[in-house]
């Protein structure tokens, strides 16, 4: 059961990573990146690393995404 | 003689405090912040001096952070290679002094404190990198110096500065990740992060391939930092565009992080005796040789003075890598001494070129013709640097060439000795162009004759460095005898 949960999360993680790269809309990519971080955060929580999970949630999903969005707002939204 | 043990902390913490307080001290007072930065480096230099004296008398020593013995806690370790802290402090002081005018005139007042802050952080990172005995701590300091390095490249605000910085950042970040990944691998097979402890436990895990992977990752990561030939592409733009005092630090010191990192990693793997390093050594020697030639080759086609100097850094790191890869005692001695001497020489070159650019506003050889008459002292310093970097005796550069060539013959690889000596000639080709332009060819811009000598805060560092280039050629034995025991210790497991 736990194994299955793990595999599902990892598959989701890789899917998110591929989606981040394939999405042309940078804003969407940034949001997917945020989701990727949250999945990662779930995995870590599940692995018994709550400190890291919490940091990743705050920094990876939060601050990094905000910074990406600010950048995209200041530059261009679509990749060519 | 008893020594106050905490100098080893001071040497890292003093520039750090200087850096974080620079914005507090320097708000709206760019002159004060320069003095503040110099004072911070002064304290650091004092600490470095104490440490060097101590290591010369008693040999290597260490400091347990928080009183935790390694491998539980972090250990700072100061050995003979650590004496590079001395040159870091020296160059740091001189570059800061040189920055005084530069920052005042080129940067907006608001950004000046942050410029100094970044300089000091960079030096903090360098010093920490050199003195730490813990792999992860090494990574942390490497990040401090890398991040500040990327920013310092961009700080000039010139047109392609940001692009150069970004290129530098991406490659640097990837290489840092490789290093971190390899540290993780080493940790997984040894359970420790302390370098000495890792070395002792590396053989315990049955499979060798993880150690090999770690070695490969660390080598590749540090090669990118050292800008060895195929992964050098970030260097020329970054070093040429950066403000001259920054270029001096980047070319003289930051690039050496790759080399010193390599040296430290090698110490681990040599001591562990689990892997045969011959293959990697052969690769290093070849890459070193190719870097020498390619660096020189590209430099020949440059018109921009600082671009030339940047390419010449690639060549010179090639020397060092070759010396490392030869794995003979003379080769290693040559390599380590070249780490010191190249720092001196390249700083001389970049700072004197910077003084010329500051005064004239031109940066190509063609535009700078005839500057030798207008700025005699600066130009002489630049010529001394040029002669030195080619390795003409009796300057600092010669000794390294001599030792590395000797190391090649000692290691029974005469081809590389010959390649090295003739590679140096190749380098001479573009330096002679430079000297010709500055001294012997008629000025392109007549107004260049009106230019006055560089201001004192720029001239003093340049003079000191040029003098050292000469003095270290004659007294080169001093750093050498200093390094020798460390090299012997390092090579001891090889039976050489």
């Amino acid at each position, binding site marked *: 059961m736990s194994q299955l949960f793990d595999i599902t999360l990892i598959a989701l993680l890789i899917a998110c990573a591929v989606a981040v790269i394939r999405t042309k809309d940078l804003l969407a990519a940034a949001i997917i990146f945020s989701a990727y971080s949250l999945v990662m955060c779930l995995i870590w929580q599940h692995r018994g690393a709550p400190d890291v999970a919490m940091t990743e949630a705050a920094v990876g999903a939060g601050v990094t995404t905000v910074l990406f969005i600010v950048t995209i707002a200041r530059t261009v939204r679509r990749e060519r | 003689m008893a020594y106050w043990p905490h100098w080893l902390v001071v040497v890292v913490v003093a520039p750090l405090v200087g850096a974080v307080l620079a914005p507090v001290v320097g708000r709206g007072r760019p002159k004060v912040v320069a003095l503040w930065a110099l004072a911070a480096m002064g304290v650091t230099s004092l600490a470095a001096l104490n440490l060097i004296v101590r290591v010369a008398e008693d040999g290597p020593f260490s400091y347990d952070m928080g009183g935790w013995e390694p491998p539980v806690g972090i250990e700072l370790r100061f050995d003979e290679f650590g004496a590079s802290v001395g040159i870091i402090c020296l160059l740091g002081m001189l570059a800061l002094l040189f920055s005084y005018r530069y920052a005042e005139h080129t940067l907006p007042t608001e950004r000046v404190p942050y410029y100094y802050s970044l300089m000091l952080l960079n030096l903090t990172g360098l010093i920490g990198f050199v003195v730490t005995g813990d792999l992860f701590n090494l990574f942390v300091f490497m990040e401090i110096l890398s991040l500040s390095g990327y920013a310092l490249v961009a700080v000039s605000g010139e047109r392609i500065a940001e692009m150069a910085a970004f290129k530098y950042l991406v490659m640097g970040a990837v290489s840092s990740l490789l290093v971190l990944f390899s540290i993780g691998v080493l940790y997984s097979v040894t359970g420790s992060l302390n370098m000495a402890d890792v070395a002792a436990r590396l053989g315990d895990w049955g499979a060798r391939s993880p150690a090999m992977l770690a070695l490969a990752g660390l080598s590749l990561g540090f090669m990118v930092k050292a800008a060895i030939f195929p992964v050098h592409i970030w260097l020329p733009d970054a070093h040429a565009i950066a403000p001259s005092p920054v270029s001096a630090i980047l070319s003289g010191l930051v690039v050496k992080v790759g080399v010193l990192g390599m040296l430290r990693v090698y110490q681990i793997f040599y001591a562990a005796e689990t892997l045969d390093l011959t293959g990697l050594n052969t690769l290093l020697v070849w890459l070193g040789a190719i870097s020498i030639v390619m660096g020189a080759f590209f430099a020949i086609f440059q018109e921009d003075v600082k671009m030339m100097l940047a390419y010449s850094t690639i060549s010179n790191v090639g020397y060092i890598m070759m010396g490392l890869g030869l794995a003979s005692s003379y080769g290693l001695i040559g390599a380590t001494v070249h780490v010191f001497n190249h720092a001196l020489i390249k700083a001389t070159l970049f700072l004197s070129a910077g003084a010329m650019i500051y005064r004239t506003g031109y940066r190509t050889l063609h535009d700078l013709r005839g500057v030798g008459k207008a700025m005699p002292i600066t130009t002489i310093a630049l010529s001394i640097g040029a002669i030195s970097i080619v390795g003409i005796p009796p300057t600092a550069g010669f000794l390294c*060439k*001599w030792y590395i060539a000797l190391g090649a013959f000692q290691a029974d690889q005469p081809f590389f000795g010959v390649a090295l000596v003739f590679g140096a000639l190749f380098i001479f080709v573009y330096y002679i162009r430079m000297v010709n332009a500055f001294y012997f*060819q008629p000025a392109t811009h007549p107004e260049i004759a009106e230019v006055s000598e560089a201001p004192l805060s720029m001239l003093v560092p340049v003079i000191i460095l040029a003098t050292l280039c000469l003095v270290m050629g004659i007294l080169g034995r001093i750093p*050498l005898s200093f390094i020798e025991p460390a090299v012997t210790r390092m090579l001891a497991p090889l039976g050489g």
Partner: protein
Amino acid sequence: MEVVDIRPMLAPLISFVCAGLVFATGRAAFWRRFWSLAAAVAKLAVVMSMLPGALRGTVYVFKLVDFTPGVGLGFRADALGMFFAVVSSTLWIFTTIYAIGYMEREHSRMRFFGFFALCVSTTVGIAFAENLLTLFLFYETLTICTYPLVIHEETPEAFKAGRKYLTYTLIGGAFVLIGTVVVYNLTGTLSLAHPGILTSSIDTGTLGLLFVALIAGFGVKAAIMPLHGWLPSAMVAPTPVSALLHAVAVVKAGAFGVLRVIYNVFGVELLRDLPFAHVLAYLAAFTIVTASFIALFQDNIKRRLAYSTISQLSYIVLGAALLTPLAATAAIVHIANQAFAKITMFFVAGAIQRTTGKTCVHELAGIGYRMPYTMAAFTIAALSFIGVPLFAGFVTKWYLSLGALEAGDWWFVVVLIASALLNAAYWLPIVYLAYFKAPPGTTMRVAEARPTLLVPTLICAGYVLLLGTTANVPGMPFSLARAAVQFVFGM
């Protein structure tokens, strides 16, 4: 007997300090001249003060810091080194006086005199080098210091010549460096204090490559064919520079290096068992004849002098390569003989150019009437080169022939005779033109060169005579050469 004494270091140091003073104060003509002359005299005095001791067999040694274990910056005035030092510091005085006159209206005189002094400093450093590394150090410095002199004119042609000069000599320097490294790696020492430091225990292939590297390295400056290409091009430099390059400093440094390699690095004993020296002798013989032959067709006086130099330098190399005491004596004394004669010729060429503006052989018709003293000096030098008895060149040829016979290679004597004939063929026409071919319809008035140009010329010519007539008088350079030979051959 070895004595620790600062004088071997003092000698190069004087010129070095002089260079510094010239750069510091040399905008004023007076100080420039004053320092140059004072240093020249002081240096000669220092060198000469060691001469009596050197003749008695005392060797003055002075060691500074070590570069690498056992090898450091060290100075050692043995007989061979003293010989070279005496010649170069004597000639420096004359060249300085001459240069002051010659360069009167030139640009960048401070630079000229500064680097001039540096060149002499390094030359004496080469003479007194205690080990191969110190020798290399000064050898390379000499290359760098002559560069600003070669391109002094700052014309495209001069830059081209300078580039060529650097290319040749720096590649030569690289060879020397490699050779030095190998010697150190093989033996752990680089000292030049012994008659040979290599031993036959090293395999022949390595020794052969080493010999090639070292001889090629020094041979570039000694202009052994086919490494001579830089020398004729370097003729674009001002005449005192040519004099310095061809008679005193650069080329002699190369030849001296060859002597050191043969006598102190390999040693006569070792080389006798190996075929390399013989090959070198053939190469030298080839150079002697070929360069003389090329000289025949040169119209520019200085170019003709250049090829003559190439030919004459190979006398030294040949003498060394024959490995017999008599030939060695010839090789060493030829350093002096060639130097004085060749410098005389360059002085003459320069004086003619400065006084009349003529630079080619065919323009010299009747010049003997106009500049009788100058041309007399020229004639003396020419006769010396041909090898007429009573002139310096004869001494060389005599001993060299004896040495060749001693070595059992009689046909080198043939080479020497051929060379003498060729020398006659390219020098005598000039003398003939000068004295017996007055251009029709012009009455020639005597219009000699300036005294600063003329006096050094005459003194040097006088020396040529002196060296030829009194070679065996004790206290002359010849006895020094003999002392050196005795040391080298263990006699």
